[in-house]
């Protein structure tokens, strides 16, 4: 276990706290600051970096170089944007509900930051090491629905209102498949503690034991995503997470081409920046919990710990950017239908699949369970998916269209 980096960080924290050993109150304050401040700063930094990554990535997808004039490779672009936004005029619409208009960005930021606190970033790097961290996470992260609706409603703009309504409908619906796909993991790990969920994915038992192969591949193959139920669960989780985080193709609350900027329409200056940052950080939080639940958390070969977590987080974000660069948006009724008629039954079926796998593993060992799970369990899931989509689609959409070419 080569988590040298994490241990050093924890040691550093202890060392700083040791200065205040004689002042219990001050020590507590310092402890709290050490738990929160680096987290907040690093995630804000990550937000800035992600906006750069997103702009560069989208640019490359669209065959253009992207920002490259401000600093090396345009790396200072987010800083320029940040300073500009900070000093830009803040407009509060005359007839808006000023209190809620003011509170909405804060309300979006708080649950996002708390959600980040539940993530096990590394071995011992855990701001809020609760035993029920995962359930708490889902409870807190659904709060940002309220913030988005507050932003939409208080602006007193029709587009904002539509955006807010969409956000409520969408986020509440997708909360269910999100949690249901997490249930399978919790079931298998037998714990709601995030660190224990990570620990349950440390070593794959069927690669062999005590050799270099296990050291290397075992640390990858132990991730839940390589198990049949975990793979399906990860896909459902990822789709639901995209919807939770208002990312494309589910970015309906701020659909540019339909309702201007949705709930963000009336926000300017730094409030807009904070709303924007809040959305990104809640997307980070959801992606982070996805990493924890399905991608083995901070586990990984060679340099386990924080670097692996960061790597996985940004890879997941890169996929989000890639999807954003490719796909158009769903319609609002299709979005709801997709959550309730498709993802919800499949997520429930996935829980049964997980139970089935667990039973087989107990009875005949991992190898058999894997085989049966991938063949039959996953097959069943596939069939169910196809059946559901056929059921939900109208015959004209199902049939393939042919176009005549006439003289």
């Amino acid at each position: 276990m080569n988590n040298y980096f994490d241990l050093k960080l924890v040691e550093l924290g202890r060392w700083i706290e040791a200065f205040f050993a004689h002042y219990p109150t001050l020590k507590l304050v310092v402890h709290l600051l050490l738990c929160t401040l680096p987290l907040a700063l690093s995630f804000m930094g990550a937000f800035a970096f992600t906006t750069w990554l997103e702009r560069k990535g989208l640019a490359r997808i669209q065959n253009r170089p992207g920002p490259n004039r401000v600093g090396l490779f345009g790396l200072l672009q987010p800083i320029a944007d940040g300073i500009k936004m900070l000093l830009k005029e803040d407009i509060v619409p005359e007839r808006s509900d000023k209190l809620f208009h003011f509170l909405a960005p804060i309300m979006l930021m708080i649950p996002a930051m708390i959600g980040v606190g539940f993530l096990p970033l590394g071995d011992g790097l855990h701001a809020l090491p609760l035993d029920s961290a995962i359930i708490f996470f889902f409870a807190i992260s659904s709060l940002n629905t309220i913030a988005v609706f507050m932003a939409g409603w208080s602006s007193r703009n029709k587009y904002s209102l539509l955006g807010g309504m969409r956000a409520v409908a969408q986020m509440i619906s997708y909360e269910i498949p999100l949690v249901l796909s997490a249930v399978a993991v919790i079931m298998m790990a037998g714990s709601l503690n995030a660190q224990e969920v990570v620990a349950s994915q440390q070593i794959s038992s069927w690669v062999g034991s005590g050799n270099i192969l296990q050291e290397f591949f075992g640390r990858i193959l132990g991730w839940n995503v390589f198990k049949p139920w975990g793979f399906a669960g990860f896909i459902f989780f990822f789709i639901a997470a995209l919807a939770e985080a208002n990312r494309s193709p589910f970015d309906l609350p701020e659909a540019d081409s339909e309702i201007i900027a949705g709930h963000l329409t009336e926000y300017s200056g730094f409030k807009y920046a904070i709303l924007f940052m809040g959305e990104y950080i809640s997307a980070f939080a959801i992606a982070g919990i996805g990493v924890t639940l399905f991608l083995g958390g901070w586990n990984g070969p060679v340099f386990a710990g924080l670097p692996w977590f960061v790597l996985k987080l940004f890879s997941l974000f890169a996929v989000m950017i890639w999807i954003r660069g490719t796909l158009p948006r769903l319609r609002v009724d299709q979005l709801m239908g997709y959550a309730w008629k498709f993802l919800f039954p499949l997520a429930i079926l996935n829980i049964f699949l997980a139970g089935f796998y667990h039973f087989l593993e107990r009875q005949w060992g991992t190898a058999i369970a894997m085989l049966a799970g991938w063949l039959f369990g996953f097959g069943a899931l596939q069939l169910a998916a196809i059946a559901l989509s056929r059921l939900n689609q109208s015959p004209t959409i199902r049939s393939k269209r042919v176009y005549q070419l006439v003289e």
Partner: protein
Amino acid sequence: MSLIGKGILKGMGVTAKNFFQSYYRKERLPTVEYPEEKATINQFSRNFPFLLYDGDDPVDGMRCTACTLCERACPPQCIYIIKDKDENGKAILSPRIFDIDTSVCMSCQLCVEVCPYEAIRMDSAFELSNENRFEGLLLNREELLKPNAYYHEIHPLEARETDDRMAAKAALAEAKKKARQKRARLAAKNKPPPGLKKTPPTRKKPPQREKSE
């Protein structure tokens, strides 16, 4: 056909291909880094009209004769010409004022097409953003006049054609003039040419100068 299916993955494949190929294939990254690299204009590009002059002095070598054909042909009426007068108040065949309001011009090239003296041509300069509308965008005669060399620089092909055409025209005029002089010498005895005929030769001077260059 499920909602997450083949089509979406295919599309993602296309974007991924574009993403990676943009690093090593020129056609996937066709960006022209504008201020550093030269812009994508070619020798046929046109933007705003300018006036041509031959020789060194812009005003003396001006080809324009203030015939106002371009002024009349201009669809948005952005050309404004006032003929020059000599001390006696007699009109001279050159413009005293020749203004083009580039903030109105629609770059249609009709003025170029109607000009019989090859005096007005289209420039391809485009870096004309200005903070002042009237001083920056209302071009007067001095700002509009550009040497023939500049024309050769921006539109080499077209300029060569123009020069050839003008040389041919000048040669024809020369031949006509010679023939007329010959006829005059043969027919009559009195040599002094009438004063009114003095102007056409001055007008035809530029091509001659062009030829001598």
